């Protein structure tokens, strides 16, 4: 479990930091990496003080209580409701890594144009208004959507399709629309400055995702192995699906391959501990193709600037994955599922409705929460967006006073 915790943190830095940081122009590489890195520190502190308690204290159906304030009582003894075989503190650590990477995913939408201070305030408020409530509803004891601890609408989400990917992806779309397009979008070239390093970042994400999904089994057992299998298979078929779509229109690209793999990992996340290998292969392939269309076609159709496609991959992929989990979830894989309460494949079509309710709540809380937070940040920070001058010289110099590549130094 501790290794899984470390793997999930590796997804944020270096994984996401390299993936995102090197997809932007080189004048913004440090600022983009700094956003992920800031969350490794900021989300950790918030989690220790109050975040864990609000997420996993047994409060109402919507938010936890303050029983674990400053991690009081979260120690070496297991908390049987959540994880009977590992220390409560280890469970807290594992969940903390999710609370770090989720907001970090949003940074892809406003990359290259958000003020650093505004970003810090945004992420703090977002953790409180969107992440903690959603994590509590789906995974917290007594949460509204908790499928195994007394939720009234049981929604399957093994490792974070609704909690992580829909919340971050949909919030990302709201941010992209609220902030507007980058200066020069559509007229100036905005090529990734190093696909080599983005490639390394994406591959670290792929590996780290084994901690994310297989680790969510909370033990080194058959379920963990099954989740590992589903995760890997979906990444593989999604990469193939995305690249095939590209190949039909132009050339099979490296960026397409790694984007497809990430899309597949997103789609399988909610399903990873519930589905057999066959459905995992299908979910990945469909996910690769759907996310390709969202990123390449739909974004251009509606002409919004989601710089690094946080919505097209995480929002769309998370939604698709959550719904397909309601189709393919089966008791044959996860014995915690009650008799007759699996997905459509187990003869329980109603589970798709439960999944849709979960999806709708995640979308709703992400849209409303993010809009409120952006308004607050706008007022407090005097605008969330960097000035046109700052954007032109790049956020590295304007926000942080450094440059990423001083080759002549």
């Amino acid at each position, binding site marked *: 479990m501790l290794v899984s915790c470390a793997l999930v943190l590796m997804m944020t830095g270096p994984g996401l930091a390299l993936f995102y940081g090197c997809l932007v122009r080189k004048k913004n590489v440090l600022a983009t990496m700094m956003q992920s890195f800031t969350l490794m520190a900021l989300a950790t502190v918030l989690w220790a003080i109050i975040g864990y308690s609000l997420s996993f204290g047994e409060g109402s159906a919507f938010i936890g209580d303050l029983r674990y304030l400053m991690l009081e009582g979260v120690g070496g003894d297991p908390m049987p409701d959540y994880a009977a075989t590992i220390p409560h503190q280890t469970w807290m650590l594992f969940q903390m890594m999710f609370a770090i990477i989720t907001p970090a995913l949003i940074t892809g939408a406003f990359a290259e144009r958000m003020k650093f201070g505004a970003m810090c305030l945004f992420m703090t408020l977002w953790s409180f208004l969107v992440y903690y409530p959603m994590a509590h509803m789906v995974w917290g004891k007594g949460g509204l959507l908790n499928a195994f601890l007394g939720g009234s609408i049981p929604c399957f989400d093994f490792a974070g399709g609704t909690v992580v990917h829909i919340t971050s992806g949909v919030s990302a779309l709201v941010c992209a629309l609220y902030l507007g397009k980058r200066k020069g979008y559509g007229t100036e*070239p*905005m*090529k*990734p400055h190093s696909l080599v390093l983005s490639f390394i970042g994406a591959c670290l994400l792929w590996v780290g995702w084994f901690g994310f999904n297989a680790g969510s089994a909370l033990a080194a057992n058959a379920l963990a192995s099954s989740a590992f299998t589903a995760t890997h298979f979906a990444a593989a078929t999604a990469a193939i699906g995305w690249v095939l779509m*590209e190949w039909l229109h*132009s*050339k099979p*690209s490296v*960026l*397409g391959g790694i*984007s497809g793999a990430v899309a597949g990992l997103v789609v399988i996340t909610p399903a990873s501990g519930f589905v057999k290998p066959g459905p995992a292969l299908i979910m990945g392939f469909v996910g690769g193709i759907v996310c390709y269309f969202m*990123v*390449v*076609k739909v*974004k*251009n159709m509606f002409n919004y600037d989601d710089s690094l*496609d946080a919505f097209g991959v995480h929002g769309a992929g998370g939604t698709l994955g959550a719904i397909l989990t309601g189709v393919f979830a089966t008791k044959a894989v996860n014995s915690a599922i009650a008799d007759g309460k699996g997905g459509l494949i187990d003869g329980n079509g109603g589970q798709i409705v439960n999944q849709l309710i979960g999806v709708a709540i995640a979308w709703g809380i992400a849209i409303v929460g993010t809009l409120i937070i952006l308004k607050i940040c706008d007022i407090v920070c005097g605008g969330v967006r960097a000035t046109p001058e700052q954007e032109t010289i790049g956020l590295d110099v304007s926000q942080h006073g450094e440059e990423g590549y001083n080759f002549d130094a």
Partner: protein
Amino acid sequence: MKKIEAIIQPFKLEDVKAALKKAGVDGLTISEVRGHGREKGHTEIYRGQEYEVQEIPRLKLELVVPAAQVDEVVAAIIEGARTGKIGDGKIFVSEVSQAIRIRNGDAGEAAL
């Protein structure tokens, strides 16, 4: 004295250098340049965003030779750089009014 500037395909550099050596030229300046003539560039696509890249990489050779040697040097460059396809490059010849060797002040053709 004449200055010869030649824009060539990067992969033909070794052939051109060999031909120039045969013609007895041993002074040469090479720079990496980007540009285009009649040949088309290429398209790059990143997640559906298409960028036309018109400026393609070429090498620019510069050498100054005595006027009597110009035809021979130009012929050597053509021999080394020619593939017969569009995009082989161009050669420009112009007048040079003076040349000075910095080390000892030699001037004119003696400085070449």
